[in-house]
C-alpha cells in the first residue's frame, strides 16, 4: 500500500496542500463575492483533507481517512446552511457583496 508514496513523495503532497490552502486564504481575503469566498473556504478544507489522506497513507493508519469523511460531511452541511443564508441575504439586499454586509456593526 505504501508504494504510491514511493512514486510521488510525501513532500509533494504537503506542498500541494499548502499551495491549495494559500490559494483558499487569498481567495477569502481578496474576493468580494460571498459565493467565491465560500468556494475558497472549500478549497482550504480540501487542502486539509488531502493532507489528512496523505499522512494516513504514510502512517498506514485509517484514522485520518475516517476524519476526512467527517470533515466532508460537515462541509456539506455547512455549505447547505451557508447557501441558504446567502439566498436570504440576497433577497434582502439584492446583492451578495460582502462589503455591503455592515449590519454586524457594533
Amino acid at each position, binding site marked *: 500500500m505504501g508504494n504510491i508514496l514511493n512514486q510521488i513523495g510525501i513532500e509533494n503532497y504537503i506542498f500541494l496542500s499548502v499551495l491549495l490552502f494559500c490559494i483558499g*486564504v487569498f481567495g*477569502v*481575503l481578496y474576493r*468580494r463575492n460571498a459565493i467565491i*469566498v465560500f468556494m475558497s473556504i472549500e478549497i482550504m478544507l480540501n487542502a486539509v483533507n488531502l493532507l489528512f489522506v496523505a499522512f494516513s497513507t504514510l502512517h498506514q493508519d485509517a484514522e485520518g481517512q475516517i476524519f476526512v469523511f467527517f470533515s466532508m460531511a460537515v462541509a456539506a452541511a455547512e455549505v447547505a446552511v451557508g447557501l441558504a443564508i446567502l439566498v436570504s441575504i440576497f433577497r434582502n439586499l439584492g446583492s451578495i457583496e*460582502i*462589503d455591503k*454586509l*455592515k*449590519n*454586524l*456593526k*457594533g
Partner: protein
Amino acid sequence: MENNLALVLLLSPFIGFLFNVFFGKKVSKGISGAIGTIAVVVSFLLSICFFAQLNQNGKGFEISFFDWIQVSNFKLDFGILLDQLSLLWLLFVTGIGSLIHLYSISYMHDDENMHKFFAYLNLFIFFMITLVVGNNLLVMFIGWEGVGLCSYLLIGFWYKNQPYNDAAKKAFIMNRIGDLGFLIGMFLIAYVFSTLNYTEIQSLVVKGETNSSLLGVAALCLFIGACGKSAQLPLYTWLPDAMAGPTPVSALIHAATMVTAGIFMITRMNFLFDITPDVQNIIAIVGAVTSLVAASIGLLQNDIKKVLAYSTVSQLGLMFLALGFGAYNVAVFHVITHAFFKACLFLGSGSVIHALHGEQDMRNMGGLKKYMPITFWTMMISTLAISGIFPFAGFWSKDEILMTAFHNNTVLWVVASIASIMTAFYMFRLMYLTFFKEFRGTEEQKHHLHESPSLITIPLVILAVLAAIGGAINLPGSMWLNHFLEPVLVAKHEAHHLGTQEYMLMGIALVGALIAIVWAYSKYIKQSFVPKEDNQITGFSKTVYNLYYVDEFYTFIIVKPLNALSNFFRTTLEPALGKLVFSFGTLANGISNQGRKIQTGSVGLYLFVFVLGICAIISYLFIAR
C-alpha cells in the same frame, strides 16, 4: 387527662382570640365580649382545679408536649411546668384577667373596635399563660415577646391619636432593649449548661459544676430583661406613657400582670441569682432607687393614670428590692397584693374617667364622692392598702419588704421607707383631689356625673375585697404563702419572728404613712390646695413635674446622636457609596464604548483579522518551539 386539661388551660384564651379576630365583627359587641370573657374564665377555673390538686398532693408536675430543638448535646422540649409558683401566677393572672374582661365589656361598649380589643386582651392572656407555665426559658421567651406585642397593640389601640402611637412604639422599643438582655442571658445559660430547662439548670447549679464568672454575666443580662419588662431604672419611662391605652389595659397589663413578668422570671431563676450575690446587690439598689425616683415623680403628677403608673413603677421597685435580698416569697407576696389593689385602683380611675367622658386631669375633678359612692369606697380601700395601713393587704406585704430590707441593709431600708411614705402621700392626694371638695369640671360634665354600671362596679367590689383581706394569705402568724412556696423557693430567710424590733418597724411604717396622709389632708382638704397650671410650676418641683427630664435626657443622649448619625449616613455616606458603585458602571461603559468601535461590521475586515490571527498563532507556535 391532665395533659388535655393543661392544654385547654393554655389554649382557651387563644381560641377566644381566634374567634374575636375572625368572627368578632360579625357578632354583636355583647357576644364578642362574652366569648372573650368566658375564654379567660375557663382558664381561671382550670387553674383553680390544678391548684386544688396541687394543694392535695403537694407536688407540681411537668408535661412535655413535643421535642422542639435538638442540636448536638443541646436538647429542648416544648413543655409546661405547673408547680406552686406558676399556679400562683396563673391564679391571679387569669382571675384578675377575668374581672378585667368583665369590666371591659361595659367600659369599651362605645368603641367600634370592641372585638379587636377583646381579641388583643385574649391574646395577651394566652401569652401571659405561656410565659408563666413554660418549663424552660425559651417557652418563657415566647410569652415574654408575646405580651410585649400585645402591650404594644393595646397601648396603641386608639391608633388615630398620634401621641398614643408614639407611646406604643416607645414601650415596644424600651422592651426590646430589655429583651436583648434576656436573649443574651439565655444564650449564656444555654452555653454554660447546655439546657434551658428550669429543673435541669437547677440540678446543675446545685451540683456546683459551673463557671461562675459567666453565670454572673448571664444573671445580669436576665436582670436587664426584667428591668425592661418590669419598668425599672433606667428602662422605666415606657410605663407611664403606656397609660395611653384604654384603662382596663393599664389595669391588666401595666399594673397587675405583665409588668410582674420580670419578677416572675427572677423568682423562677432564683437558684441562679442566689449564687451571684453581686447581681443581687445591683437588683436591690436598682429596685430601691427606682422606687424612690418614681414615688417622687408621682407626688406632683396631675393625670390620674400617670400617678397610678408611677406608683406602679415604685411598687415594682420595692418588689425588686425584696428580690435583691433573696426574699423571693416576700416579693411574690407583694406581687399578689399589689395585683389586687392596683388593678382595683386602675379600674376605679377608669370608672372616674368613664363618668367624666375621658377627663384624666385631677385638677378638673373633685367632689365625686357623692356621685360615685361605690367607686369611691372601693378605691379608698385600695388606697389604704397601697399606703400600707393596717390591716389591709398592702400593709402586710410592704411591711415584709421593709423588714427584709432593714435586716439586710439599713440605707436601702430608709430609701424604701421614704418611698412608701411618699406613696401614702400621693395616693391620698389623688383621692382628695378626685373625690373630695367641690367638682371643678365644666357644668356639662357635672350634669352627666353618674355611678358606673354594675359590670364596672362588680369587679371593683371584688378587687376591693381582695385588697382588704388579701394579706391573709401570708399573715405573720400562719405564713401560708411561704409554706406553700417552700418546694419551689428554698427559703433561706427564716420567717421573721415578731419581736419588739418587728413591731417597732411596723409602727414606724404605719406612723409614717399616717403622717403623710394627714399632711395630704391638711394640704388638699384644709387649705383646698389645687395643683397649679403647668406653666406656673417653678423650681425643683418643675424638674420633678417634668419627670426629672429623663425623657429629654434620653432624647439628648441617644435619640439625637442616633438621628445625627443616620443623617450623616443619609446625606454624606450614602451618596458617596452610590458614587463609588456608580463609577464602576461608568468605567465599564466607557471601555465598552471604545471597544465597540472595533466592530465595524465589515466582513472582509473580520476575515482579514481572522487570518492574521491564525498566522500570528502559527508563527508563535513555531517560534515558541
